């Protein structure tokens, strides 16, 4: 493990921002730190960078405990949420700042800055001030500035938060490519699950100062271990009592049932469907147009579920009675989540 956090605790006054955080990060990986607002993501990043001290626990980088190493000596590049570009310095001076502080010779600085600006595609903008750049350009300057002193570890706090949706999409793949090319171990914070899934090699999920789960995007999405993770991803419908859904095993002490849209298949009464016989009866309450297709809200056994259909399927109207088949659901017991499959999936199919 290249970066290791061991039993980190951090309070702000009485508020526990980090609660026994223990996690390891492999060298060269791009890690997404994902969690809702206020879950302690920035706090973790700032402690690794040395901008904040943990109350207890160890921070280890490359085998050395660095709790007492000052921030400036940790060799970490940091991209701030607001970029924190030096607004009274040109793009060139922003990127050159760390090198000047390190007293590198002038020609070497010049070379490195030009190399970096070329890398991030900003050659020719050396003389601009941050206020004269677009959001995406600022982000790239911040990235170049953080990389200038050749950090071994790059930390990015919500690098795309301040950028509009279209550019954000481009920058995501750009950043992912860039970091892969450079091979620098990186941790980026986000509260956007799509972003984490798309960009990260591995996702660390935080909630209320604790680490909920660590794993590949596929792993954390499809195999959530905790109640929080199960309910965090997708667009879940969450309800208490699922005993009316007869095709699912009943677990003891079950708290919540969680059904994601992709677990639900809605068909019209006259449509052919493999598991027609074990489908539930539902009534459509809402039909919304989305870019990718149609989003439905269907009431089944008194529970409102979200489901999706594509445009090429026959039209469904509000108030229509439909068949609803639920493939699977997560059921939480205390802090853990269990995946339940519809029993019909295991039974021989009877085609009518």
């Amino acid at each position, binding site marked *: 493990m290249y970066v290791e956090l061991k039993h980190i605790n951090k309070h702000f006054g009485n508020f526990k921002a980090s609660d026994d955080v223990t996690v390891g990060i492999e060298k060269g990986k791009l890690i997404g730190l994902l969690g809702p607002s206020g879950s302690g993501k920035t706090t973790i990043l700032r402690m690794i*960078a040395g901008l904040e001290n943990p109350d207890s626990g160890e921070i280890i980088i490359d085998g050395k405990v660095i709790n007492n190493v000052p921030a*400036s000596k940790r060799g970490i590049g940091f991209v701030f949420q*607001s970029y924190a570009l030096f*607004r*009274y310095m040109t793009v060139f001076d922003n990127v050159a700042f*760390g090198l000047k*502080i390190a007293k590198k010779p002038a020609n070497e600085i010049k070379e490195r800055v030009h190399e970096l600006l070329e890398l991030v595609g900003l050659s020719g903008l050396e003389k601009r001030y941050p206020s004269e750049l677009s959001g995406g350009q600022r982000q790239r300057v911040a990235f170049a*500035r953080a990389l200038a002193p050749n950090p071994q570890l790059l930390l990015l706090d919500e690098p795309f938060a301040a950028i509009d949706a279209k550019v954000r999409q481009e920058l995501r793949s750009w950043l992912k490519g860039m970091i892969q090319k450079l091979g620098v171990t990186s941790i980026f914070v986000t509260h956007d699950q799509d972003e984490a899934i798309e960009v990260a090699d591995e996702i660390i999920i935080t909630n209320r100062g604790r680490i909920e789960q660590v794993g590949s995007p596929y792993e954390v999405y499809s195999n959530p271990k905790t109640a929080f993770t199960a309910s965090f991803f997708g667009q879940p419908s969450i309800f208490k009592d699922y005993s009316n859904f007869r095709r699912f095993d009943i677990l003891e002490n079950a708290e919540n049932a969680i059904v994601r849209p992709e677990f639900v298949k809605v068909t019209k009464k006259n449509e052919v469907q493999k598991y027609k016989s074990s489908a539930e009866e539902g009534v459509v309450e809402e039909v919304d147009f989305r870019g990718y297709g149609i989003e439905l809200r269907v009431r089944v056994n008194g529970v409102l579920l979200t489901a999706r259909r594509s445009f090429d399927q026959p039209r469904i109207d509000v108030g229509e009675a439909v068949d609803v088949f639920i493939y699977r659901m997560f059921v939480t017991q205390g802090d853990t989540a269990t995946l339940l499959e519809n029993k019909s999936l295991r039974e021989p199919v009877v085609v009518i």
Partner: protein
Amino acid sequence: MSAVTQSGLHRDTKGSKLVRYSLIGISLLFVFLMLILPLITVITEAFKQGFAVYSKAVADDYTIKAILLTLEASFFAVAINTVFGLCAAWSLTKFKFKGKKILATLIDLPVTVSPIIAGLIFLLTFGRQSPIFPLLQDADIKIVFAVPGIVLATIFVTFPFISRELIPVLESQGTDEEEAAALMGAKGFTIFRRITFPHIKWAFLYGVVLCAARAMGEFGAVSVISGHLRGKTNTLPLHVEILFNEFQYVPAFAVASILVMLAILILVARSVIEHKGRKK
């Protein structure tokens, strides 16, 4: 931009021409009566008996001494309040500590308290009836009825000017840029010089100008503690008062005109600074 006027208000909401012109008229009339007219009076009274009398009054030994003392007191007030203002503004905006609210409130005290009271405070603290007076006397330090007292009183009344200008700018900046610089290995003073100061420069200069203006014009606090010793503890405003009380009207107005000119100079400096600061 067609229906929306420059200030962003829709034309209809600005009322009729009559309202507009009468409001502007009232403002102009007021400024004329309250500011321009008195200023003109000061200048004309000063030159009433010709330039020779004016220059004699201005070149008078006591006047020169008063000018020098005023400049000295203003210089110290600005210098010390610069240091204090930077420290206070910095700690109030960048640190969290107990008593922060109290400090912020106390800084404003000098503007809310009457200058006379300020003078009295120093008179009572360092004067004959004070318990530390013997100590000062042993050390041969004179504060009351001496230059140090005047400097102290001036510092007191101009106390909040610089910090009050700095606090909003520092607050709006946040700490990100400084943290970014620190992460790259910059030390405290480098961070201040390269990151913080460029940001607060214009607000700072503006504060210095306000502080200087107030320091030069201060009358109340200084009056109490000075003892009015001509040529020793007389500042320009005090000198004007003395001349006036002695019915020496022309010299009184002549000296006053110096203050007016200083004020105009400062106004110009202020506009330049404001203009430059806004451009950034």
